[in-house]
């Protein structure tokens, strides 16, 4: 048989760049999206005026902090495919580092302290990520668990980290940026938003860019990744470092903006699992999922309490309720893993697509 060579067309730079996943959408929808985004952002900014202190300081602030930590965990586990159960340790490092900088270099701007916390956490993350160059799979839990327990011990043990306060509990300084006072619940919320929003944007850029692709390549097939020129070791360490940076900043927010205090045991293994659950429920490898997961984790217990109150009145013993709460939560996690491993993010995406198809048809 004779074979004709398929003609190879050179890229023609005069023609506009080909439409791709990001640009594929009709410009009309792009407009809608931007409008939506703008509206959403506006709404986010004025939220403190719409909801009361309870929602702000007991729901939204922790939600923001946890979402950030979720993104961090997602980089390591969801994107780079490395099992980590030490996120709380890196949050802890972030919180204490931020606090210590503020304490020992008095008058350090708040945002600088938080950033310093993040960087310290990144260093710790890279350090405890090193074994990932050699160890694979579940055995890697050794590394992150070591981090988990060591950090907890270190901060409990070495008084210097907690400013030698007799109790070993650190209390946040009064919050303010420049001269703007942020000590009100609204202020705490704005501070969190100010930190989380840009970091989220950056997270999207990383996840969708070269670095994100390298991470996913390592996750999906490490050998092939190496063959196409991904520096796999570098990619893993970067994932640990960046992931821990996000966790560190989240820890700082947790300590400063949410609780206003933090003790080493506040970042124990349960917290690490909580972060892990956020990623699972929200969706592995999805930034938006980190927010959904965090929202779920924060709201679910509250919602259940409210429900119980509403349905059963006072008759139910809170202890029992809490246990039921635990059971249902565990069940939901299993159900999600079985039915929709891509998590809430995917569920919502599907719903959104259905809705769009429906509207198109009806239109």
């Amino acid at each position, binding site marked *: 048989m004779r074979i004709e060579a398929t003609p*190879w067309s050179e890229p023609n730079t005069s023609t506009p760049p080909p439409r*791709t996943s990001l640009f594929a959408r009709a410009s009309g929808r792009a407009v809608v999206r931007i409008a939506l985004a703008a509206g959403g952002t506006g709404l986010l900014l004025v939220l403190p005026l719409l909801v009361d202190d309870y929602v702000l300081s007991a729901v939204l602030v922790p939600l923001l902090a946890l979402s950030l930590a979720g993104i961090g965990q997602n980089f390591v586990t969801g994107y780079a495919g490395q099992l980590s159960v030490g996120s709380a340790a890196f949050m802890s490092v972030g919180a204490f580092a931020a606090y210590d900088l503020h304490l020992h270099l008095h008058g350090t701007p708040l945002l600088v302290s938080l950033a310093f916390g993040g960087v310290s956490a990144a260093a710790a993350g890279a350090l405890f990520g090193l074994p990932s160059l050699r160890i694979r799979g579940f055995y890697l839990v050794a590394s992150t668990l070591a981090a988990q327990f060591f950090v907890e011990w270190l901060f409990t043990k070495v008084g210097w980290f907690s400013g030698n306060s007799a109790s070993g509990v650190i209390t946040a300084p009064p919050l303010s940026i420049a001269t703007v006072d942020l000590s009100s619940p609204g202020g705490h919320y704005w501070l969190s938003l100010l930190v989380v929003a840009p970091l989220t944007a950056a997270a999207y850029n990383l996840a969708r860019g*070269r670095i994100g692709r390298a991470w996913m390549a390592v996750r999906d*097939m490490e050998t*092939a990744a190496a063959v*196409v020129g991904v520096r796999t070791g570098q990619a893993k360490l970067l994932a640990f470092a960046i992931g821990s940076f996000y966790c560190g900043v989240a820890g700082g927010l947790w300590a400063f903006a949410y609780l206003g205090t933090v003790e080493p045991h506040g970042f124990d293994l349960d917290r690490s699992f909580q972060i892990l659950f956020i990623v699972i429920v929200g969706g592995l490898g999805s930034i938006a999922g980190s927010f959904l997961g965090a929202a779920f984790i924060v709201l679910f217990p509250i919602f259940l309490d409210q429900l119980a109150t509403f349905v059963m009145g006072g008759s139910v013993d809170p202890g029992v309720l809490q246990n039921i709460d635990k059971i249902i939560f565990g069940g939901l996690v299993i159900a999600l893993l079985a039915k929709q491993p891509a998590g809430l993010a995917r569920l919502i995406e599907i719903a959104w697509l259905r809705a769009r198809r429906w509207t198109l048809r009806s239109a």
Partner: protein
Amino acid sequence: MTTALLDVQNVSLAFDGILALDDVSFRVARGEVCALIGPNGAGKSSMLNVVSGLYTANAGDVLFEGERLTGVGELARRGIARTFQNIALFRGMTVLENVALGTDFRGRASFFEQALRIGRAPREERRMREEAAVVMDLLDIASHRTDVVGRLPYGLQKRVELARALVPRPKMLLLDEPMAGMTVHEKRDMCGYLLGAHEKLGTTVVLIEHDLGVVMDLSDHVIVLDYGKKLADGTPDHVRADPAVIEAYVGSFAT
């Protein structure tokens, strides 16, 4: 004769005692299409894996453009791309992302440029998209750009993998049974793509293939392996005439 692009010198490879490659040497000239053939277990894939640094030979050297190849890490940067016998795509990622990874190693944008989408980062992304688009159009997979690879049919996946290998415009392409399990039509297309790449880019192609018809049509240079030893090495006609080869492939050349 011109200096060989790829120069395999006395390579031997053993898996716990059993000799998979036994003192094999051959040269591949720049710009030729070279086929590695031989019965199953002849050591073809092993040879390809040694060349691409996935296996380290117990003895012998592999020179590319006169310099030793050391390890898989530098493969792409030296201008070598390859595909695998049983597709090695990133199943969780979209076609575009997979193809993009083919050129990513060229990226220069710093971490912060990427995080903030400033400076070189957006330019590189755009360039990557253009290059990817060209190859995807060429291989008729552009329409699947945003599909997740894991869910695509086999034939398409083969093409995506080829696209990922072609997009950096490599100097040498290592293809491990690119047409395994394909229909005649698919094979024809595939050959078309290969020749296209080869003619336009002067890409040197080293491929493993069982369909001797295809091999003889496609390649300028055929190397026959058998039980880890080199049986024959030469032009298709020369190899076709070689008694040892005929011995190995009883009557396979009737057609």
